[in-house]
């Protein structure tokens, strides 16, 4: 499955395992995959399959117990519930990520505002997270993650707490961001439809390891009622629930 690794790979996992001592989180066993530069990869699987652990290893929040990991230094992440700091405004939430990078002051403002406006949040610059809707908060989370210009953008079930309409809007936003910035994106999701609608490639995780790989060649935008899309969904679903 991983034979096609080459110079274009930005992340490589080779037989990576992680065990937690004590077992307060789900580990992973012998996980191998690679991510190409500019790719939109989706990790799906039932809860407890270890997909979030993969993200934690990529961010450096956790260290693998064994195996080899190649990853870029600068990765950033969009969290499930936004993980915005409630005492900071939208602007400050985005700028705080840049401040720890020794970016010159005038650049901080330029970069932060650029990404706030890119996510359509220009009029909310001085609002606090509690004054925003769930979708707007998640957009701030995306702006913050993009502002530091990461090599890889990680999304940890970023839309799972949102309603269907907002999720749909954010799906379009993230595809726009991907097209404009050409970033490598890795998203963790437990929704088959979501991963099929967005990703180039879907890795199905089961029992703490990778169970199957789906390559998706359907062009964007993907229509949820199109025959080949439904066929793909069924294919993933069959494997998912097996």
């Amino acid at each position: 499955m991983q034979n096609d690794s080459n110079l274009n790979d930005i992340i490589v996992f080779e037989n990576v395992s992680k065990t937690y001592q004590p077992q307060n989180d789900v580990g992973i066993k012998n996980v191998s995959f690679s991510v190409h530069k500019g790719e939109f990869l989706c990790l799906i699987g039932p809860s407890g399959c270890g997909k979030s652990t993969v993200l934690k290893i990529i961010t450096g929040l956790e260290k693998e117990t064994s195996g080899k990991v190649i990853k870029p230094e600068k990765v950033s992440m969009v969290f499930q519930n936004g993980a915005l700091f409630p005492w900071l405004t939208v602007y400050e939430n985005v700028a705080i990520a840049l401040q720890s990078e020794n970016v010159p002051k005038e650049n901080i403002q330029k970069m932060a505002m650029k990404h706030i406006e890119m996510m359509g949040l220009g009029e909310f610059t001085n609002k606090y997270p509690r004054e925003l809707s769930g979708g707007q908060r998640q957009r701030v989370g995306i702006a913050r993650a993009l502002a530091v210009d990461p090599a890889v953008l990680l999304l940890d079930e970023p839309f799972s707490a949102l309603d269907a309409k907002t999720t749909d809007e954010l799906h379009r936003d993230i595809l726009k961001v991907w097209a404009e910035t050409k970033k490598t994106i890795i998203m963790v999701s437990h929704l088959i439809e979501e991963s099929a609608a967005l990703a180039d490639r879907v890795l199905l995780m089961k029992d703490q390891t990778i169970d199957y790989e789906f390559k998706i060649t359907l062009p964007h935008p993907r229509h949820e009622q199109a025959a080949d899309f439904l066929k793909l969904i069924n294919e993933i679903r069959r494997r998912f629930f097996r």
Partner: protein
Amino acid sequence: MLKEQHSKHNKHFNIIYPASTVQKLYSIFVTPVIVLAVIWVLIKTFSLFPGIPKVVDYEIVAKAFGYTFWRLLVAYVLALIASVPLALWANKSDTAERILLPTFDIIQSIPVLAFFPIVIAVFIQFGMYNGAAIFILFLAMLWNMVFSLIGGLRSIPADIKSAARVFGITKLSYLKKILLPASVPYLVTGSLLAWAQGWNIIIVAEVLHTYIPGGTASQDLFGIGSMLVNAAAGSQQELFVAAIVAMVIGIGLINFFVWQKLLHYAERFKFE
């Protein structure tokens, strides 16, 4: 909708607590007593009616309140400064918490009065009477602050901590930009409790002569606490009531102008 109403209320600094039956009964019976006491003090202080002599000097009572407030403030600032490293220490790891929490709890449960031998040996012996009072107040205030702060640090969601690490907010800026702001709501409630505890213990802290072997009232610190005790001991009812009224009014004003506003301010630091 609810949130809007809530913030609207806060804007005008209305009392937002719903009154329970106990609170209602309390205000029905206690309010008249306070009102009567205030009237009585006004009569005795300003000789509003001819023939009733002026026996209370309000300037001295206000000054006493000021001195006491200053002592509490110094003790509070010291408790605040000391509580931060203690709470951070206990929050460092699960092991640290397992050992330090019970330890703090045991120290907290020792009555302040039990520290008097130390107070005498360290402060009073060398004539540092204010130091002695501030130390006693500090001990009374410290643990409220420490436990509130530990609670605050524990309340920080895991994804907030992860976000801080992913975005390179570490060490000192992690303390300044994440840990302390996240603890603000808990610090405010802890401070409120600490001040309540401080007012509670002020009588003990200022009336030092009762603990000094062969002590006299001249060794007491001038303040509202010692004024209360010595007025009671000297049968100066007017002064005693005036001191109580000054405390009620003073604490009420502090509550209204400081704590209500801080509680409102702390709202923005809360996680949803």
